[in-house]
C-alpha cells in the first residue's frame, strides 16, 4: 500500500496550508503550515490544549476548519472525509471500546465498517492483534482491560483497515515505561517494514523524542518550530554542545586539578566542569562544529596523560529543554516553568 512509486517525488501524505480553527474569539489552531513526508514518523509536540487534537480532528474531517487548506492522502478531509477515513488509521486520545464486547469483536465491528469481508477480516485481526501483542487477551471483554491494554487494542484497531497513514493522539499516555518502549518499537517497525507514514501527538516530549524522524513544536495553536531534534536543538537550544566523559576512580584533589588542566588544554574546549561527586561524569563545552574534533582530541589527551577515561559521549539535547527555550523565545507561557 505505498503511494505511487513511478515518480521520484512521492507526494506528502499530509499537507496543510494556513489551516485555522477558531472557537469564537479563541484561536485553537492558528494558520498551520505542515508537511509530513511519506514514510516518516512526525511528532506533533506540545502542552495539553496547544491545539494538537483539534488539528488531528480537522485532518480527519471530524472537525470543521475555519479557514485554510488541508490535504490528507490526496483528499480534502472537509469535502471527502470518507476517502480520507478509509485510508487513515486513527487512535484517539484516551481511546474507548464497547465494554460488553471482546477485543476481537470490537475489531470485527471496525472491519465491517470498513467493508472488509469477514474471512479476510479475521485473518487481518489475528495479524494486528499479534503485532500489538494482544492475541492472548483478545477474547476477554474490553471492560476488563487495563488502560495500557486498551491503548494497544486501539493501535490494533487503527491498523485493521491497513492504512497508508496512521494518526495517533497521545499513543504513550497512560502506558508504563516498558510498554512505551514496545509501542514505539512497533511504530518504528510499521514505518520500516510497511512504509507507513505516522503522525503522532504527545505532550510527553522526551518519551517520543527517540522515535520521531521530525518533530513539530506546537504552542498556543501555532507551530513554532519543525525539524529533526538536532536541527531544533541548533535553532532553539544552547549555542554549544556538551560532551560528557567519565574518569573512573579519579578521586584525589591533585588528580582532579591535573585532569582539569589536561581537559582544558584540549583544542576547542571552551569550558570544563569537574564532577561534584566521585562517580559523576565530567562535562566539556564546545562549539557544535568542533564537537567531533574535541572528542577525538580529548580521547588522545587522556591516553597521553594517563587519565582513566572509561566513556565519552556527546549529550543529545532534551526535547523538553528545546521546548521550553522555544516557548521562551516566543514569549509564550510555560517557557520558564520547571527548569
Amino acid at each position, binding site marked *: 500500500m505505498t503511494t505511487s512509486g513511478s515518480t521520484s*517525488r512521492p*507526494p506528502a*501524505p499530509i499537507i496543510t496550508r494556513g489551516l485555522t480553527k477558531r472557537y469564537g474569539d479563541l484561536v485553537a489552531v492558528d494558520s498551520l503550515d505542515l508537511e509530513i513526508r511519506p514514510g516518516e514518523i512526525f511528532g506533533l509536540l506540545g502542552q495539553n490544549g496547544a491545539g494538537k487534537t483539534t488539528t488531528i480532528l480537522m485532518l480527519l474531517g*471530524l472537525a470543521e476548519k475555519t479557514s485554510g487548506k488541508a490535504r490528507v492522502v490526496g483528499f480534502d478531509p472537509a469535502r471527502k472525509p470518507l476517502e480520507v477515513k478509509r485510508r487513515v488509521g486513527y487512535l484517539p*486520545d484516551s481511546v474507548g471500546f*464497547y465494554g460488553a464486547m471482546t477485543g476481537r469483536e470490537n475489531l470485527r465491528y471496525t472491519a*465491517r465498517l470498513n467493508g472488509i469481508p469477514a474471512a479476510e477480516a479475521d485473518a487481518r485481526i489475528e495479524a494486528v492483534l499479534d503485532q500489538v501483542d494482544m492475541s492472548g487477551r483478545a477474547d476477554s471483554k474490553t471492560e476488563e482491560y487495563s488502560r495500557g491494554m486498551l491503548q494497544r487494542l486501539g493501535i490494533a484497531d487503527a491498523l485493521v483497515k491497513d492504512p497508508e497513514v496512521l494518526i495517533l493522539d497521545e499513543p504513550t499516555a497512560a502506558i508504563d515505561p516498558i510498554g512505551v518502549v*514496545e509501542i514505539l518499537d512497533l511504530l*518504528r517497525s510499521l514505518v520500516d517494514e510497511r512504509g507507513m507514514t505516522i503522525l503522532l501527538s504527545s505532550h510527553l516530549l522526551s518519551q517520543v523524542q527517540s522515535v520521531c524522524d521530525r518533530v513539530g513544536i506546537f504552542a498556543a495553536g501555532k507551530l513554532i518550530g519543525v525539524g529533526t531534534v538536532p536541527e531544533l536543538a541548533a535553532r532553539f537550544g544552547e549555542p554549544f554542545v556538551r560532551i560528557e566523559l567519565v574518569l573512573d576512580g579519579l578521586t584525589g584533589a591533585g588528580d582532579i586539578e591535573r585532569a582539569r588542566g589536561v581537559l582544558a588544554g584540549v583544542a576547542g574546549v571552551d569550558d570544563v566542569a569537574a564532577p561534584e561527586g566521585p562517580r559523576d561524569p565530567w562535562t566539556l563545552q564546545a562549539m557544535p562544529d568542533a564537537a567531533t574534533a574535541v572528542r577525538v582530541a580529548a580521547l588522545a589527551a587522556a591516553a597521553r596523560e594517563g587519565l582513566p577515561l572509561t566513556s565519552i559521549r556527546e549529550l543529545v539535547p532534551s526535547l523538553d529543554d528545546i521546548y521550553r527555550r522555544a516557548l521562551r523565545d516566543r514569549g509564550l507561557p510555560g517557557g520558564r516553568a520547571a527548569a
Partner: protein
Amino acid sequence: MTGARRTTGRRTVRKRTAIAATATNPTREPADGSGAEGTVGPAVEPLRRLPSGWRIIAGKEFADHLQSVRLYVLLIVLGAAALIPLYFASERIRSLAQAASGAQAVFLALFTLGPTDIPFLRVDQFVAIAAPLLGLGFAFDAVNGERHEGTLPRLLSQPIHRDDVINGKFAAGLAAITTVLVSVVAFIAAFGLLRLGIVPAGSEVVRLLGWLVLTILYVALWLAFGTLLSVVIRRAATSALIGFGVWLFVAVPIFGQLIVSLVGTFVAPATGSTQDVLAAAGTQQFLLRLLPSTLYREASLVLLNPSVTAVSTPVSIGQIEQYQQQIPTLFSLDQSLLLVWPHVVALAALTAACFAVAYVQFMRQEIRA
C-alpha cells in the same frame, strides 16, 4: 532499557537514509495541496465499495439491544403490565361471554376490558403507561454513552458519515421496540386463542394490527425523545432521570391529569355558570390533547373498540344534547381510522420533530467535550 537503546540505534540508521534522500532530491516540491489531488488517489489500488454505514451500526446496536439486561427488564415490566390486566380481562370475558354470545369484538375485549371497579387496569391503559419506558430505555444513552465510553471518536474515524451513527441507532431502537411489542401482543393473542378459545374475526385482526402500528409509533416518539436527550445531555444518568421525570408527568395518567387540571384551573377556572364549567372542561380537554399520551390513549381506544364513535367529550349544551340523542352504533374500520387519523399524524409529526432536533444537534456537536 535495551529496547530504548535498540530504538535509538535504528533511528540513527534511518536518519542517515533520510539525509541521503534529501541530498539526492534537494528541490523538494513545495506541494500545495491542489497538486496532490489526483496523483495520490488513483495511484492507490482500487478500494472495495464501502457498505452503508447506518446498516452496520444498526445491526450492531440491535444485537446489543437483544443481548442487553435492559431488554429483559423492559420485557418483564411490559409483560407484567400486560399480564395483570389480562387476568382480569379474561375473568370478565368468561362471565360476559356466557351471557352475550355473539357480541362484537370479543377478542379485542382482551385488550380493553378490566375489572369494573378499577378503570385503569386494562391492557391498553397499561401498555400506554409502560411502553414509553421501552422507547426511553433503548435510547437515553445512545449518544452520550458512546461519548462516555470514548468510542465515539473511534467510531466516527471509520469511513462512515456522521449521521449514520444517529440513523443507525434510531433504526436499531425501532427494530428492538417492534420486536418487543410484536412479541407481547402475539403473546396476549395466543393467550386469548389458547386459554379462552376466542377466535378473532378478520376485522379484529386488522384493528389489532392497526393498534400495534399506533403503539410502535407512540414508542418511536419516546425513542426519538430519548435520543434527543442522549445527544443534548452529556451524562447518561442525567438524561435517564430527565426522561423518567417527563414520563411520569406525561405518560402516567394521575400525574398528567394533575398538572393539566392545575394549569386548566389557572387558565379557565370552573366556577359559576354551566357555560363556565363547560368552557373549563373544553380547556382541560385541549390541554390534555397537548400530551402525546392523550393522543395515543384516544386513538388506541377508537382502534380497539368499534363502539367508540367519538374522541371528544361534549363541551357545549348543544353537543351534550346531540350526544344524548345518539343511537349506540359500531364503527367500521375505515370510520375508526378516519377518527384517529389526526392523532396518528400528530404523533408522527412529534416523533419527526424530536428526531430532527436530535439529528441537527448531533451533526453540529464537537466530537470531544
